[in-house]
């Protein structure tokens, strides 16, 4: 899960990483107060999880609290590439930047460990740098059993060619950044720009943080962070139900078990001439209530014209899924036809449950194969 800049900077600050002091604000008045507390000139920064906010006018410098209030007024509610700005981050403006660097730690699936990266060309489009001058970015593999050692940090820093004046401060900061990366179970910690000030201080002017949702049991405080993300009503509802749901905008609602099978289901719907309304993976071992909750979320999507439930049981059992479907039909208003295809563990028992429940006035249709199910669901979506 991706954090907003202000959340990332708060995480950095806790880890002892130097960041500009700041305050979050959701109203112009809060922004004014924050600027007054900080004193001096401040930056007012739109909190959105999308790039390009600077170009869109989402970052402004204010000389005093009143100007901060005015900027906040302009920025709050702004639409940046489809993201509405609901919060600004007011921070003390850093005016004595000598150099701008780039640094990150990220999970490295290809090489089975962690990857540290650093560049002396920060504050710019680092992807373009990676493209045009790959040697400008030092890349260091870190073994997960070993963790970071001083030589890794030296390889990052000397490999990137940072200024001598930055070596000590950057070494300390990168070491803390890596420790935060591990301790917070992050998938990514990225700083761009990492700056060297004219006073010789090294600090993080931005913070991009992505955390591993699977590690929430070690970090119960992440629950709060998670609540602030979803904006779409279905995604919101799905989050509340802990469903792995992504809206796609088509007309065929999809429920399946296992990411691979669900993706394959989206593909066969497309091959049959339709478009999926969503991705919804109920995962392994789902119980009846999860299926019912999933149907509930899908029904709230007004674009949906039919639903395809595609289950191949393994740890998930067909009878549990069938029970969930019948529960949903009893409790909520299933307005569109639902095509069900069950195979695998306890599929026979599941089909019996459905047969006993009946066809719900033509709204509950069984299919034998995945392709047949997709064809039916697309056909029903088009004809309804």
């Amino acid at each position, binding site marked *: 899960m991706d954090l907003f800049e202000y959340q990332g900077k708060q995480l950095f600050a806790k880890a002892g990483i130097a960041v500009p002091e700041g305050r979050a604000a959701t109203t112009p008045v809060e922004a004014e107060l924050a600027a007054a507390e900080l004193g001096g000139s401040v930056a007012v920064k739109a909190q959105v999880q999308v790039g390009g906010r600077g170009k869109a006018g989402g970052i402004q410098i204010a000389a005093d609290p009143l100007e901060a209030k005015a900027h906040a007024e302009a920025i709050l509610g702004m639409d940046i590439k489809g993201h509405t700005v609901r919060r600004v981050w007011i921070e003390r403006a850093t005016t004595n930047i000598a150099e701008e660097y780039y640094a990150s730690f990220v999970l490295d699936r290809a090489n089975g460990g962690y990857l540290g990266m650093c560049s002396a060309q920060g504050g710019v489009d680092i992807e373009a740098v990676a493209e045009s001058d790959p040697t400008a970015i030092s890349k260091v593999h870190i073994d997960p059993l070993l963790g970071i050692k001083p030589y890794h940090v030296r390889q990052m820093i000397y490999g990137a060619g940072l200024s001598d004046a930055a070596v000590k401060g950057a070494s300390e900061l990168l070491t803390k950044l890596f420790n935060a990366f591990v301790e917070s*179970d992050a998938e990514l910690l990225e700083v761009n720009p990492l700056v060297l000030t004219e006073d010789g201080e090294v600090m993080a002017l931005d913070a991009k943080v992505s955390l591993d949702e*699977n590690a929430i049991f070690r970090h119960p405080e992440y629950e709060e962070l998670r609540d602030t993300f979803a904006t779409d009503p279905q995604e919101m509802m799905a989050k509340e139900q802990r469903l792995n749901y992504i809206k796609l905008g088509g007309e065929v609602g999809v429920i399946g078990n296992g990411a691979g099978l669900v993706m394959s289901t989206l593909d066969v719907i497309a091959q049959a001439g339709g478009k999926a309304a969503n991705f919804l993976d109920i995962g392994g071992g789902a119980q009846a209530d999860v299926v019912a909750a999933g149907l509930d979320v899908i029904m709230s999507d007004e674009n949906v014209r039919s639903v395809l439930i595609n289950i*191949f049981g393994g740890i998930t059992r067909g009878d549990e899924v069938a029970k969930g479907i019948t529960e949903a039909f009893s409790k909520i208003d299933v307005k569109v036809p639902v095509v069900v295809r069950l195979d695998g563990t306890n599929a026979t028992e599941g089909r019996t449950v459905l047969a006993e429940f009946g066809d719900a006035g033509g709204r509950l249709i069984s299919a034998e194969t995945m392709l047949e199910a997709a064809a039916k669901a697309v056909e029903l979506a088009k004809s309804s």
Partner: protein
Amino acid sequence: MAILLDETTRVVVQGLTGREGSFHALRNRDYGTQIVGGVTPGKGGQDVEGIPIFDTVATAVAETGADASLIFVPARFAADAVFEAADSGVSLIVCITEGIPAHDEAGFSEYVRNVARSASGGHPVLIGPNCPGLISPGKANIGIMPPEICRDGRVGLVSRSGTLTYQVVHELSQRGIGQSTCVGIGGDPFIGTKFIDLMPRYEADSETDAVVMIGEIGGEEEERAAEWISKNMTKPVVGYVAGFEAPPGKKMGHAGAIVSGSKGTAQAKAEALEANGIRVGKNAAEVAELVAEALA
């Protein structure tokens, strides 16, 4: 003789006394798999339908002569369970558990791959985590794959996706095409065994005539395997990649883009497979047709 698993494999189940653990372990035993013990700390001395329970994997292995461990423990204890299995001397570890933190996975994958030693020499093989397990039809099944969809036969199958595996196996079986060993390697970013690790085993297996490789979006393991296959493999391989219509993947900051570039889409993977001479089906049914053609 199939790969990794057969009727001689002796399996202990970590988390056998749990709900999922007992359900699947007993189902695996019913299939003919030698489930020789279970492990639950503090329950040593008990039994589950005749399967003895031990406090530690080390004791279970010492007492039963097990050479494989199947892991069903909850995510928060899973890393410890994998380390424990890795140090017990077994040759095969299968971790079904999903939802394990990536940092844990990175650590134990590395430990199993490079540090731990099995009693028979070499490093143990870890399948998973977050995988359905593996089955050598007619011989043994460990994990959660529904065995009734499989047929004993001569096609190997390896997949990052669990349920998609079932789907493809189902299509194969319905056409009378049996399987030698089907392995669900799991879809998490860090897994113990990758496509490229299994291909040499299938190539060497006298009971495998062709292989199906089922990929997913993300990473570049399909691409790496395709290159290896094109250079080293004499047996036909049929590919499948799900996710052409998938929502755009999560973008891991600029760092993710720097590392992976444009790799990782279903399109890029399917093209890489085909460029290396591997035929790619556009759905599970077509994959089965392509396998039938390859065997004809």
